[in-house]
């Protein structure tokens, strides 16, 4: 079977201890929570850390708390736990839905909110064994110099593949980052950057500690749609999160996030002009869908027909909007 490389393994018991471990070997550590993505990546030699820092012993990261600010979710809350959290189902249904659509029950039992948020970008030319990548001639994300998706491209376009991130962004979630200089909050959509090699703002000595779904975001209608060949296991070929304030007779605002296209989730632009003050009907949905189709251009980074994925953008956007306004949707 595929082997793991040799590395040092540490299991700190506190957040401070984690930060000390990271600071001690800057750039040479890999944080592991559930390990569902990190372990295969290690076996594929996509990560070659000197030290693997397990977050298993840090109790603080498992906290779930609701207060005036909103719903706080610790980074090490598992995806299965997210799907069963009443407060999340009630107020932020699209996040619960997204979490429920990750991989399989076993993987959701191990996989965590923080792990899914910080999921390494994925590409058909990258998520392969060392041997396969050697036959390919490697790529610029790891061990090589060229991009096989955009042959003349200088930037990695591996796909952001987190299911929970688009939903979190749609609700305006905040992400707490801890580092040697303390803690800071950033908006979830500012957390990601358009670089497939390292697609978030985390520095080598930092980690995500919790996510806040703000109180002000309650009372909206949310939906999440995921395009995948199979009804389980697969990463998104395309994902749509939508959050709407208003009702069927009159939409106030809408936020729509599309992902699994490039290195970061895309917040759809110009939406207010299409929806504000309008009815939630097929005409409105079609206008949003057409706009999404124009703004999104899938690449061959994800191992599925890119033209079909493009054709599915308006279909999924329409369906997500219908979901949001379906009876019982919150």
């Amino acid at each position, binding site marked *: 079977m595929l082997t793991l490389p040799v590395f040092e393994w540490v299991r700190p018991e506190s957040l401070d201890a984690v930060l000390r471990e990271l600071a001690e070997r800057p750039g040479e550590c890999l944080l592991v929570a559930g390990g569902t993505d990190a372990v295969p990546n290690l076996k594929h030699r996509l990560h070659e850390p000197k030290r693997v820092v397990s977050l298993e012993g840090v109790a603080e990261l498992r906290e779930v708390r609701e207060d005036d600010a909103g719903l706080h979710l610790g980074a090490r809350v598992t995806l299965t736990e997210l799907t069963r959290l009443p407060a999340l189902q009630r107020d932020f249904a699209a996040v619960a839905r997204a979490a429920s659509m990750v991989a399989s029950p076993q993987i959701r039992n191990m996989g965590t909110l923080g792990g899914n948020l910080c999921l390494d970008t994925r590409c*058909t030319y990258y998520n392969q064994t060392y041997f*396969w990548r050697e036959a390919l001639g490697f790529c610029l994300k790891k061990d090589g110099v060229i991009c096989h998706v955009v*042959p003349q491209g200088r930037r990695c376009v591996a796909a952001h593949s987190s299911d929970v991130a688009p939903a979190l962004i749609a609700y305006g979630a905040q992400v707490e980052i801890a580092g040697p200089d303390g803690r800071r909050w950033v908006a979830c959509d500012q957390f990601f950057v358009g670089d497939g090699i390292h697609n978030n703002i985390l520095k080598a000595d930092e980690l995500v500690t919790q996510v806040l779904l703000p109180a002000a975001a309650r009372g909206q209608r949310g939906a999440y749609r995921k395009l995948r060949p*199979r009804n389980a296991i697969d990463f998104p070929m395309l994902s749509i999160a939508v959050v709407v304030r208003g009702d069927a007779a009159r939409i106030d605002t809408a936020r729509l996030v599309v992902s699994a296209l490039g290195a970061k989730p895309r917040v759809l632009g110009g939406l207010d002009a299409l929806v504000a003050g309008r009815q939630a009907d097929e005409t409105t949905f079609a206008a949003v869908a057409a706009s999404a189709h124009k703004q999104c251009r899938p690449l061959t980074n994800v191992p599925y027909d890119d033209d079909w994925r493009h054709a599915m953008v308006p279909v999924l956007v329409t369906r997500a909007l219908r979901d949001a306004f379906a009876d019982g949707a919150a």
Partner: protein
Amino acid sequence: MSKPRAPRAAGARPKPATGPARAGMTIPEGRQMPDASRLTPPAHEAGRTGPPNGDAFHTIGKRNRKVEGLAKVTGRAVFADDLTLPRMLHAKLLRSIHAHARILAIDASQALAMPGVHAVVTGRDLPEYFGIIPWTQDEQALCESKARYVGDAIAAVAADSELIAEEALRLIKVSYEVLPAITSIEEALAHPENQVNEKASEGNLSKHVHLEFGPVDELLEASDEVVEAEYWYEGSTHAPIEPHCCVAEYDATGFLTVWSSTQVVHYLHRDLAKVLGLPTQRIRVIQPVVGGAFGGKSEPFSLEFCAAKLSMLTGRPVKILYTREEVFYAHRGRHPMLLHYRTGIRRDGSLTGTDARIAIDGGAYSSFGLVTTYYSGQLLTAPYAMPAYRFDSTRVFTNKPCCGPKRGHGSVQPRFAFECQLDKLAERIGMDPIAVRRKNFIGENTRTVNGLRVTSNGFLECLDAVERASDWKRRWRNLPYGRGLGVAGSMYISGTNYCIYPNEMPQSAVQLKLDRSGRATVFCGISDIGQGADSVLAYIVCEELGLDLRDVRVVAADTDLTPVDLGSYSSRETFMCGNACLDAARQLREQIASTLAERWGVPKGELVLANGMAVAASDPHKYAMTVKDAIQAAEAAHGTLGSVGWYQSPKLGGDYRGGTIGASPAYSFTAHVAEVDCDPETGEVTVKKIWVAHDCGRALSPVAVEGQMEGSAYMGFGEALFETHTFKPATAAHGPGIHHGPSLLDYRMPTSLDTPELESIIIESVDPEGPYGAKEAGEGPLHPSVPAIANAIHDALGVRCDRLPFSPPAVLALLQGSDARGAWERARLGHAGAGARG
């Protein structure tokens, strides 16, 4: 290239064999069939198909547990990778990064210098060619002069651990001269000068077969309707959950033991002898519990030769476990086929002529390709009577992993094309496609146009069953747009009539031991790969001797302990080993029965051995004892108890070159109806349900048969909609032949959430020659899956899916590229019109 410090067993470097004459076994020349007396199976008083003890079966036909089932579900079954021997080394294979390249030089000095590395072997250490078919032996354990696909094995390293072996691989320097690669059938035929495999007779031709039966052109001419179409069947792989694994131990006496996850212990035994230059009598091959195979383990692979050679060099046991990626490179999966069919029909629904032209992508080596090429035509001639039939099949070599036998070997692809043809023809003449199939039913106890003998045949009952269960008459052509039903039928062999290498010895044998402990032990070379082969033998012994399942042990697939069986391929085990076992068990039953009949003074025919008791039917209260006591009485009367049974199929097949390929002592028959629910906006096809009716002769254990039917239907469904064993086209930045994603993430087998409801309906035709009337169940039920789904998509959407897979992009493109809705409405009108004609 072993290190000087590596210990070596005395006399451990025999010279390699130099030709077929050195092969471990002596094959008698001349006659290819045994003496006529051996071709007549032993007659039994109770007959072969009826119950041996009284009027009813006691074990046969019951929903019995599998003998190894509890060990598997409790994690106690011992697979090859569970074996660990003292001082065992681990080996890894270095594989080619080029699709086609000459190997100029290999420098392994740095790898050998690495601490923990014990030996390296290359093609030069194992130069002898091997191959499952004796006439097309074109493989070497490690490529000696040329690599023929990305992943072809070049060298092997034995080290203290897998990690060290893997790191050592990266230190081996291979100088390649990259050659132009052939990656498609078209390229293979257009560029014979770029020869993939030097053993080819010419260019890239692996095998060509042209056979013609009856006046094809004449009958096509005289048809009322002729449908001509081209079909593409995409390649797929078996993906057994257990990757290939073997452990080899060459001991100090020069005796080699190999444990391997194989389904052909006997053929592996022969090829190990040939390649390693060892006599067969100094090799023992053992098959541990196998975690699935589906045809993907039915020939020897690099790992077995390399582990054995490395053990011979180092004097230590060596294990090789393939990674999932390596399983994709070992492959031997479904051949991609381009199939061109012309089929004619008369207005009354009777078929006229069929003309098929088939191009087959074989990958880099022959494997079973000779047989595949014949099967692509030979196995289509039932369950429908074909007045005239011609096929022209060409298998070519390409620079891709070698294709081979996957469940339904060679005939799943033409079956897809032909059953779609039937659906189109039925539509042309306005006839219900089930009625067309009934109309052309070939019947029982008959011969096909190509000379295959058909005995029992329950195909009509299969059609009736799926028609009824799916409410076909009311729902076909009557469901709303997007939903549809489709039907298809098929037949398959219960074992091939001849051994892969010509010889006069039995195809299957059983030695049965019985003693005063009350325990029976069946020794048989049978390969259980999860289908329940071992269990079948146990059921038969229980039935014959009245024993409990717990009192029978099956010792299987160990060349030191068990008589030869040819292995688990072509759906032969139940039929052939089952017959061998039936004969062995019945001899012991006879000894017990005659002993008791004499002691009690009752006619032998009155004796019943069942549920642990032996009784005389006339007075079971007076004449009764436990089976254990009865066995002791028989042992006292006859001496030590033991028997031998064997199976040899009768002389069968057409009297022409290739006429024996496809000949089987019995054929199974299947019909499917599939129901689909399609999303015209996305092209997504959801298969809601498949009704599977299968004629397996007598079901020895219905639950095992149902498992095979469901598993087959699932596998076909996966090929229809999801699975593709394909390769990335070359670009300026990388070469050709790189697998699109050799992992279970990117090779998308359907999950349980994708899988339709499967309803299995067993049809029991009771074959006159099968053990208790049994026929095969493991491969036949796969065939109709794919065309039934294609035909259902047509009923749902009005598009014809002639190319696999029926993926959402493909179906959406078909919808957008045609007047699908119009075709859908016309099909309904045609059906309504046909209704008036009855």
